[in-house]
């Protein structure tokens, strides 16, 4: 171990086909972006307009862009997993050895949860929540920027092993000890896992605090808690869960790191360590995490169903209670992830039955959506398609979930492909379809033009058919006794046709993804014809639709006063349209200044993580000092806002009206 490079040596540089491939494609991507920016002379624009932005609308878009890139990375992993499992039968051992195969599914899981689903959700929450509550920005705009950059730093760290080390954790997405301890995983893979999750997890935690304060303290006058739109409600509940459980993740993986770095014995198999404690702690975070992902999606569906049925959401209070119950129960059920670890029958029964209770509020939500549709005027735009797809998949996934909540059934289904199919149904059918519904729903608001409907619906059909073709075989394989994470199996078991079918499903899904990309490209090209001039393309109900598309940086020139649920819908119903402008006139608006500090700080954190992975002590100390200096400078800065004078606001608003 050298003082200067720590454990890093030349042998850590890429020398296998997949690390070389990863490195080259990362370099090519970077060069491509750089060339484009240089050619279009947009470096400065990128820095001043985007990278240093504290505007949640811009940060939201950046979240979604990064999440999309990570989605492709995760999907590539999925394809590699499928290819191996289709090929590696009997005498053939496929194209991957077990170690690499295990690294791929570990990366696949972590990327899809931490960097795809979380990224999309934070993006949507950033874009929409301030607009829905009639706020101009977030409570702490700088922390929001920092949260994003930490998320990106984590995303880069999880890919950095391609370049340095060539090895990711081969331990499953939660890296359970003792397998993840130094004794069994001596390489840097688990260290990359620890630091990418740690860095992005802290970003999530910061975001959670920020949104709680924003939603609780910055709502437009008159918007009481029970007048908040459902998406804001579920985002709030999701963020409360974040604040409650992400500290557990932070500490748990820190303890694992202490074991690995300093030879401590929290989770080692000897010296009195207790691996079971890790399993408990990680699932105390891990189970609520699932609901952190799914709750905002529930909110999106509520908005979509009400809007496209052109009716008030049925059972609003009941929906809020249901969402709160889901969150409350979510923190009480973690043990159902390890019924098979020999806890007593009473303990298993308690956790099993509590888990089943979650199905009650979830079911109530679905019935309420159906009641909203009842006697509505339903337009089947893309978001509504995704909603229908969600109900169709999620009810089956939910059944599978309740089934496994019964410990006696779980003994037979745990860690089988049935489980894998179940949680993919929940995360894809629940969270991802919700995200797609949200993106297609709010796309015109954010960009100012509408998406091509025909291509979007076609993409939906590929997705839904591909989804069933892909995951129903996994349910069946689970019943056949196929366990998860197998890099090889016997031909005599007869599993191969089903694995291949699952792969065909994946191909169908990728057509869906390709169509989605094509849809965005086509819609962008023909955006002039599809401009959303009114700012209210769907005859919406909530405040975000009262702003122009895209909204100005300050969102609302005049903060609206809310008197009802579905605030904008009610405003539209009121005939006396003497505009609020005349009543109050414009006032000065205080806006957060752009700052690069988020990038600098996250950059130092990134370097710190890298130094920790490779045990480069001096670099860790230097980057830590860098972090501290950045925090001090920023926290003592008194000039973080600028003022937009009322006259300027009036000019900008007049310009908009004139343009209309």
């Amino acid at each position: 171990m050298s003082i200067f490079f720590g454990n890093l040596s030349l042998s850590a540089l890429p020398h296998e086909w997949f690390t070389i491939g990863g490195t080259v494609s990362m370099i090519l991507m970077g060069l491509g972006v750089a060339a484009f920016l240089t050619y279009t002379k947009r470096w400065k624009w990128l820095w001043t307009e985007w990278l240093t932005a504290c505007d949640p609308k811009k940060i939201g878009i950046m979240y979604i862009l990064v999440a999309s890139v990570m989605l492709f990375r995760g999907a590539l992993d999925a394809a590699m997993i499928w290819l191996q499992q289709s090929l590696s039968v009997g005498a053939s051992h496929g194209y991957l050895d077990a170690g690499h195969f295990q690294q791929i599914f570990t990366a696949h899981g972590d990327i899809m949860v931490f960097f795809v689903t979380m990224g999309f959700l934070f993006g949507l929450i950033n874009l929409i929540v301030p607009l829905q509550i009639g706020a101009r920005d977030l409570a702490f705009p700088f922390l929001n920027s920092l949260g994003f950059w930490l998320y990106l730093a984590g995303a880069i760290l999880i890919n950095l092993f391609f370049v340095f080390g060539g090895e990711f954790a081969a331990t499953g997405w939660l890296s359970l000890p003792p397998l993840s301890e130094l004794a069994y995983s001596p390489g840097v893979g688990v260290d990359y896992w620890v630091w990418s999750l740690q860095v992005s997890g802290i970003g999530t935690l910061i975001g959670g605090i920020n949104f709680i304060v924003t939603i609780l303290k910055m709502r437009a006058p008159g918007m009481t808690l029970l007048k908040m739109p459902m998406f804001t409600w579920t985002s709030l509940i999701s963020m409360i869960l974040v604040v409650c459980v992400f500290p557990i993740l932070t500490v748990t993986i820190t303890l694992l790191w202490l074991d690995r770095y300093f030879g401590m014995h929290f989770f080692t198999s000897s010296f009195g360590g207790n691996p079971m404690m890790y399993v408990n702690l990680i699932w105390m975070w891990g189970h609520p995490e699932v609901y952190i992902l799914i709750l905002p999606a529930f909110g999106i569906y509520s908005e979509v169903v009400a809007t496209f049925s052109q009716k008030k959401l049925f059972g609003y209070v009941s929906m809020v209670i249901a969402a709160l119950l889901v969150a409350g129960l979510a923190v009480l059920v973690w043990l159902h992830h390890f019924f098979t670890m020999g806890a007593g029958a009473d303990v298993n029964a308690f956790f099993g039955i509590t888990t089943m209770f979650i199905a009650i509020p979830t079911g109530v939500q679905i019935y309420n959506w159906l009641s909203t549709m009842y006697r509505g005027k339903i337009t089947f735009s893309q978001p509504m398609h995704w909603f229908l797809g969600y109900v169709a998949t999620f009810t089956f996934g939910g059944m599978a979930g309740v089934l496994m909540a019964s410990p006696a059934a779980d003994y037979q289904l745990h860690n089988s492909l049935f489980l894998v199919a179940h949680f993919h149904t929940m995360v894809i059918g629940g969270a991802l379809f919700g995200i797609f519904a949200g993106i297609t729903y709010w796309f015109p608001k954010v960009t100012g033009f509408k998406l091509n409907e025909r291509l979007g619906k076609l993409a939906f059909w590929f997705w839904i058919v591909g989804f069933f073709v892909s995951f129903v075989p996994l349910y069946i394989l689970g019943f056949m006794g196929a366990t998860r994470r197998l890099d090889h199996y016997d031909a005599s078991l007869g599993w191969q046709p089903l694995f291949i079918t699952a792969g065909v499903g994946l191909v169908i899904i990728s057509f869906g993804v390709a169509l989605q990309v094509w849809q965005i490209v086509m819609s962008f090209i023909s955006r002039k014809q599809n401009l959303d001039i009114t700012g209210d393309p769907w005859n919406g109900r909530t405040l975000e639709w009262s702003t122009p598309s895209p909204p100005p940086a300050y969102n609302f020139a005049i903060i609206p006063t809310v008197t009802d649920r579905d605030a904008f819908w009610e405003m539209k119903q009121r005939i006396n349209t003497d505009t609020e402008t005349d009543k109050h006139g414009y006032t000065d608006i205080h806006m957060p200044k752009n700052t690069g500090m988020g990038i600098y700080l996250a950059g130092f954190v990134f370097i710190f993580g890298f130094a920790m992975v490779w045990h480069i002590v001096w670099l860790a100390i230097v980057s830590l000092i860098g972090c501290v200096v950045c925090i001090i400078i920023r926290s003592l800065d008194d000039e973080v806002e600028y003022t937009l004078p009322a006259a300027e606001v009036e000019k900008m608003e007049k310009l908009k009206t004139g343009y209309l």
Partner: protein
Amino acid sequence: MKPKYKFVILTILFSLIAFFLLWLTKNSNIAVLNPKGLIAASERRVIVTSLLLMLLAVVPALTMLFLFAYRFRASNPKNNYNPNYSLDSRMQILWWGLPIAVILVLAVLTFKSVHQLDPFKALNSPNRPLTIQVVALNWKWLFIYPEQNIATVNFIQIPQKTPIHFELTADAPMNLFWVPQLGGQMSAMQGMSTQLNLMANEAGEYNGSASEINGKGLAGMRFVVKAASQEDFNSWAQSVKNSSKPLSLETYSKLAEPSENNPKALYSSVESDLFKSVMMKYMSGEPEKSE
């Protein structure tokens, strides 16, 4: 396209997919649904009952979904849309009541089944139970028969219709022991002993596997459980005793070293209290290097 045709096309498409998938499974053994053991059969009953019960809440939901989507579509000329119409809020009683009722019934069944199928609970049978000690190693299973004083690797022979009492531990990262046709899974962990009680109802060979990730040899940790008559078992045990390879401490520590895709192996005798000393290795206060 008219919504009606769309619906027909979709129904045909999804039915075709379903039939195709069924056809694919025609030559394979759907182990969990084809139990050959007492426990596995009860567990299948739990699975099937739970699924049927849940359909009580799910079928109405899905029916309403497609019905409402069709009936209340904007393009339907018969649509009697009213933006201010809302269902009677007393409907909430039904919307909460239905899932609560289903889940309560399920909860009662679950409470019963989890106690009845507690893996630690000894099985009722006129036949004397056979104890097998299981040690999860990297990457193979060691099975010790303390009463017969023999041991095997990646192979279990048992008498049918006799309760088998498994005691499990690990000398490697934790693992899960699973023979789907006989019953559910149980963890094997270092420094701990867990228990699993199973019984084969009929003779046959059943696949077993490891289902917790524990390193690169995971996929090769498959084993076969052969259930046959008591006489067969006795003569098999005797033949193993007569073979030449004993499992001494030395052989054991060699066996415990990581190796992949181990073939079946038989040991004529076992170092006394091997299982216990494997377990104690992780609990003793003596400072000793873990691997």
